[in-house]
């Protein structure tokens, strides 16, 4: 490379958002049986169903957000702001319609559904935040498969 040439750094093409969301979903699936069985024993099958639906909504919401934002960041970064806002609105609309439908059907313990939705969202997010901040602070903490230090 001559002194006048310089390498233009390319944007990352890694599936960062999907990795975070899959990790979150795994943690959600670890927590789900404990929450569902616990609430089912405490408040009955309607509460268990409410917890299942709330956890499902939270996990699918994370996965959908990650897929949309990741795809846009890789393929059309100039549209990231618009896509992020529109996806937020559309997902909120879908959650509202689902919530209204579930409430109208009256098949779940409604307070349990609501508090599981908020509680699981925050618990999973803080749990993931802890892992992510550790990874960012100590990038060499988890060696990649097949990587051996000389």
């Amino acid at each position, binding site marked *: 490379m001559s002194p006048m040439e310089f390498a*233009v*750094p*390319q*944007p*990352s093409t*890694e599936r*960062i*958002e999907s990795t*975070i969301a899959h990790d979150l979903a795994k943690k959600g699936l670890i927590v789900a049986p404990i929450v569902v069985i616990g609430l089912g024993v405490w408040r009955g099958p309607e509460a268990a169903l409410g917890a299942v639906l709330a956890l499902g909504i939270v996990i699918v*919401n*994370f996965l959908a*957000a*990650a897929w949309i*934002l990741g795809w846009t*960041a890789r393929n059309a*970064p*100039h549209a*990231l*702001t618009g896509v*992020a*806002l529109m996806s*937020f*609105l559309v*997902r*909120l609309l879908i*959650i*509202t319609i689902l*919530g*209204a439908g579930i*409430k109208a059907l009256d098949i779940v313990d*409604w*307070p349990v559904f*609501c*508090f599981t*939705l*908020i509680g699981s*969202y*925050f618990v999973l*997010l803080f749990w*993931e*935040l802890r892992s*992510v901040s550790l990874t*960012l602070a100590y990038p060499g903490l988890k060696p990649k498969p097949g990587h051996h230090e000389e």
Partner: protein
Amino acid sequence: MSIALHLLAATGGLTGELDAGLAKVGYGLAAIGPGIGIGYLVGQSVQAMARQPEMAGQVRTTMFLGIAFAEALALIGFVLFFL
């Protein structure tokens, strides 16, 4: 204000309608806040990625988590609206 609300409730029996209306306004406000937050957050992230493309990975990581936290406010609004 509260006296006016009490008068309205006493004269017209509007308590339920008022509650429903206030809940809708609250839900709207709870959606606007995160919308502003997400717009600002993503705008700043795009700027950071344009300035330092080699840091795009870290910027996207923190952006995604920031968006998730901002959305939590809208979810709280959703729950309060339906409760």
